[in-house]
């Protein structure tokens, strides 16, 4: 039987070592890096309107996936839609400063003020304006509460 005390081997002291990261990346690294960035970007850009009726989780997921695909294939469409909605919101905010007064009503931003001036100059929406294009009629859409 081997006597452990006879073992004269000295334990190895670890050497001081600094190992550089590998200087190459792999195809899968490039793929996952780009796809994860793409998903995070498109998902963050999706700001859904309020649905006409309350959606189930499955419907929300399906809509999310659908619009993710649209966002990947047509990011320009998302950007255009965002610009139009921002213009609409600024016009509403501009008119609100005239119609809905509050003691703490903040002064609208420069974009809102510019758009409001532009719309008023262009003879835009006002009480005295005539009927507008048929497809811009009110979307008072029916849905169950």
């Amino acid at each position: 039987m081997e006597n452990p005390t006879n073992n004269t081997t000295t334990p190895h002291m670890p050497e001081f070592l600094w190992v550089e990261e590998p200087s190459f990346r792999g195809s899968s690294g490039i793929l996952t890096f780009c796809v994860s960035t793409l998903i995070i970007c498109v998902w963050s850009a999706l700001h859904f309107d309020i649905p006409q009726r309350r959606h189930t989780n499955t419907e929300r997921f399906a809509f999310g996936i659908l619009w993710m695909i649209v966002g990947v294939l047509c990011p320009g469409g998302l950007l255009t839609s965002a610009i139009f909605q921002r213009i609409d919101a600024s016009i509403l905010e501009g008119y609100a400063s005239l119609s809905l007064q509050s003691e703490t009503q903040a002064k609208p931003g420069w974009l809102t003020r510019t758009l409001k001036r532009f719309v008023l100059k262009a003879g835009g929406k006002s009480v005295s304006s005539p009927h507008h294009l048929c497809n811009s009629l009110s979307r008072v859409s029916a849905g169950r509460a």
Partner: protein
Amino acid sequence: MRPPSENRQFPFGLVHAFYATMGGFAFDIPKRSGASKTSTTSSTRRYVIASQSFLYIMQNFPDIIPDISEESITDRSESSPLSKALLIVQVGWFCANCLARLILHLPLSLLEVSTAAHGFCTILTYFILWSKPQNIAEATSINGPRARQVHALLKCTEEEYAAALKMAATVVAGPTDSNDQIVLAAHALRDRLPGQEAPPPGRDDSFHIPFWSSSPGSPYCHLCPPNAFHYQTIPLVIAPLLYGLPHFLGWSELFPSSLERLFWRVSTFMATGSGVPFVFLVILGNQYNHSIGRIGLGLTSILYIVASGFLIGESLRQLFYLDPGTYQLVPWSDYWPHFS
């Protein structure tokens, strides 16, 4: 325009305006008594108020707009600081990595070029919609007798509106518990007299497309004046341009074949410049023939999507034929926290 409403407690800012444009306010109108007896669902019907109608209400009946605080809207929003931080860190790392590769003259893969183009467009979209509440599930309800009257007015056809206006001018105030649309509309109009010159934006009950009912926005500007139509075409040119331009970074990359390189270049031009024929067709359709305009728009949209699809597909395919230099790492890039 009507004189401003009584002082409100909470200011109506950009968040409120976005909330209104995204369908944040809705009428809850009781169903007719006959219908509610047989109905097994709720006794009210919901009508989401579109931007044009909301502007009309704001100008004529501001008293029925709920006085809600910005916090009551943003508290229901799903946007969180964590998701914003995640976006900033990931995109920051991606941009830093791409810039470092360009500075060090290391090649980029087409997938990185394509992701950069998407990232640029979507980040711009994100900042444009910064004040828009994210993914709110349900609208704020407007109800009560006054809401019923205004709702009836908004639903009027031109003939009904004329009848209501006539009735409003002659009828003395009476009970408003009637369900008759013209009577209700007349009551709404009564205190607007004299001076009511134009009807509400119009009636379009049937304009309910489920596909768009949960969309991230609208494909056109609702509140822009009709005679400023040409200005509306500017975003249609700029957006594809901003998406297409970064793809020129892949102009001289290594491609699996020369044909694919040619297709990449053609697709890049198509995606970048697709806004120009798009706008031309919109103007053509608007001025001459709506059906020609629509067909043209459909074709241009399909071409844009095909070009965009090719750019994505090709960038994935090129992953198997990369320049060896593409695999070389930027020395410091792994020290940035990120998802990969």
